C-alpha cells in the first residue's frame, strides 16, 4: 500500500486537511476582512489625529489615549453604561423569572400572557426609540396624559437630566424583559416534569418547589442570562442614540454614542478610534473577569 512513501492514513489526513481548508476558507477570510483587520486598524488609527476625510494623518503616538484617560465625558459615559448594566440585570432578569414562573405554574391558560408579554420583542430598537420619544413626549405623551387625567401637569421625563437615564433604562427593560422570560421558560423545560411531580408528591408546595428545586436548577440559565445582559448593556447604542442622542447634557451618554458622535458627527476619527478601542478593552476585561468568576464557582447538583 505504498504511495510515494506516504501511508494511506497520511494520505487520508492530507485529504481531510485539504477539504477542511476549502470549507473553512470563506468564513475565515470574511472574519479577517470585517472583524480582525478592523480591530487592528482601529488601534492603529487611534495613534493619529485624523478627520477621516483627508489623507493627512498626523502621528501623535499615545496622545489620544492620554486624552481618553483624562476625558470626563468618556468616564461619565462609562459610568452610565455601568448603571444601565446593573439596573438591567436587577430589573430584567428577576422580572423574566417571575413571568416564566407564572407561565410555568399557570400552564396552558397563561399562554395568552406569554404572547402579549412577548410583543415588545417584535419591534426594532430604532422603532422603539421613536415610539417612546412620542409616547413619553411632554405634550400628548402617555405619561403626561395620565398625569393630566389625575389633575397634574405635563411630565418631561426625557428632557430632565435627573430622570432621562432612568427613563431610558425603563424603556430598555420594556424591550428586553420578554427575552429573559422566553429564556427562563426554555430553562424550565430543561427542569424535567418528573422533578416537579416528585417534589409535589414529597409534600413540597409551589413556593418550596420554586425556591429549593427550580431556582437552583435554573442557575446555569441565570448565569448566562446575566453575562448576556451585561455585555449587551455595555455596548448599548441604537435606542439611546434615537431617543436622546446622549442628552440632555451628558446625562444619557454611553460609550457607544460618544464614540459615534466623535467619529461621525465631529469627524474626529483618531480620537473616536481611541474611544472605540477603550470601549473594546473595557468590555473584554469585564466580560472575561465575570465569566471567570461565574465559572470558577462551579457547583455540582
Amino acid at each position: 500500500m505504498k504511495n510515494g512513501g506516504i501511508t494511506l492514513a497520511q494520505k487520508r489526513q492530507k485529504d481531510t486537511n485539504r477539504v477542511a481548508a476549502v470549507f473553512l476558507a470563506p468564513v475565515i477570510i470574511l472574519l479577517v476582512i470585517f472583524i480582525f483587520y478592523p480591530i487592528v486598524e482601529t488601534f492603529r488609527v487611534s495613534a493619529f489625529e485624523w478627520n477621516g476625510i483627508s489623507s493627512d494623518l498626523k502621528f501623535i503616538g499615545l496622545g489620544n489615549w492620554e486624552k481618553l484617560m483624562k476625558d470626563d465625558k468618556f468616564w461619565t459615559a462609562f459610568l452610565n453604561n455601568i448603571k444601565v448594566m446593573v439596573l438591567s440585570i436587577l430589573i430584567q432578569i428577576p422580572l423574566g423569572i417571575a413571568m416564566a414562573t407564572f407561565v410555568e405554574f399557570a400552564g396552558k391558560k397563561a399562554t395568552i400572557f406569554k404572547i402579549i408579554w412577548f410583543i415588545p420583542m417584535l419591534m426594532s430598537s430604532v422603532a422603539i426609540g421613536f415610539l417612546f420619544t412620542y409616547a413619553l413626549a411632554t405634550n400628548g405623551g402617555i405619561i403626561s396624559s395620565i398625569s393630566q387625567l389625575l389633575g397634574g401637569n405635563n411630565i418631561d421625563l426625557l428632557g430632565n437630566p435627573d430622570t432621562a437615564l432612568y427613563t431610558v433604562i425603563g424603556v430598555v427593560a420594556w424591550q428586553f424583559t420578554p427575552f429573559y422570560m422566553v429564556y427562563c421558560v426554555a430553562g424550565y423545560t430543561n427542569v424535567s416534569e418528573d422533578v416537579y411531580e416528585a417534589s409535589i408528591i414529597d409534600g413540597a408546595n409551589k413556593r418550596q418547589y420554586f425556591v429549593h428545586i427550580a431556582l437552583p436548577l435554573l442557575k446555569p440559565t441565570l448565569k448566562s442570562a446575566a453575562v448576556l445582559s451585561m455585555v449587551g448593556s455595555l455596548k448599548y447604542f441604537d435606542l439611546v442614540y434615537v431617543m436622546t442622542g446622549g442628552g440632555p447634557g451628558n446625562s444619557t451618554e454611553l460609550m457607544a454614542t460618544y464614540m459615534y458622535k466623535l467619529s461621525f458627527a465631529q469627524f474626529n476619527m483618531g480620537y473616536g478610534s481611541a474611544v472605540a478601542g477603550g470601549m473594546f478593552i473595557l468590555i473584554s476585561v469585564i466580560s472575561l473577569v465575570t465569566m471567570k468568576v461565574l465559572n470558577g464557582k462551579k457547583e455540582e447538583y
Partner: protein
Amino acid sequence: MMEKDYRASKVKSRISWVIACILAVSAAVVAIAPFIFMVINSFKEKFEMLTKGVFSLPEKLDISNYKEVIEGNFLSYFINSVIVLVVSLFILLMLSAFAAYPLSRFKFKLKGVIYSLIVACMSIPVHITLIPIFKMSQGMHMYDSIWALIGPYVAMGIPISVFILTSFMEQIPKEIEEAAAIDGCGKTRMFFSIILPMAKPGLSTLAIYNGVNMWNEFIFAYTLTQSQGNRTLPLAVWEFQGQYSMNTPMIMSVLTLTVLPMILLFIFAQDKLIKGMAAGAVKG
C-alpha cells in the same frame, strides 16, 4: 388542627394566586400599551391627536396616513431591506454550514484554535469595526449602496451561526457517514447530500435569529448609506420625521408598517419565531 393548617395554606395560596394574576395583567398592560398607542394613533388625522387626546379611539378608520406613506419612498426602503436580508442570509447560512462541517466532523490540527477564534468574536462590539469598515466601503466605492451592508451583516452573524451549527452537526450520528463512505461517497458530496439536509432545523432557527437581527440592524445601515433611495427600512422613519415632524400620526403609521412583517411572522409562526429569537441566548 391539621385540617385548619391545610385550609389556611389553601386560602394563602389562593390570595397569592390572585395577586400574581393582578401583577400579570398589569405587566401585560405595560407591554402592550405603547404598541396600542402606536396603532390607534396611526389611524388619526393630523390634529385629531392634539385635540382629542392620545387615548381616544380614532373618529374613523383613516387610512390616508398609510396611503401617503406607501406612496412616498416607503417601498424603496422595504425592497432594499428585503434584498439585503435575502442575499446576506443566504451567504451567511451557506458559509457557516461550510465552516461547521469540518469543525464538527473532521479531525485536523488547527481545529481547536480556529473554532475558539471564530466563537470568541461573539462578544465583540461592532463599534470597534465601524470606522475601518466605513473607510473600506469608501475605498471600494461601495459607500452609500446597499451592497456595502452585506459583508458586515454576514461577518457579524458568522460567530454565533458557526457555533450553533457546529454543535448541531456534532449530534448527527457517525454511522450515517460511515455507511455513506463505504458506498464511496467523498467528503464534499457527503456534506451536500447528507450533512446539510440533516442540519435543516438548525439552519431554520438561525435564519430566524439572524434574519430578525439583519431586518432591524441600525448602526451599519446608518453609517454606510446616506441617500434615501439606498437605505433600509429601520432608517425610513428619519425621512418621514424630517418631512412630517409635527405630524405624530404619520410617524406612527410609518412605525406600524415597519413592524408589520414581524407581526405577521409572529401570528403565523409564533413558536418558530420565539425559538429562533431565543437562539441568541447561547452567547453567554
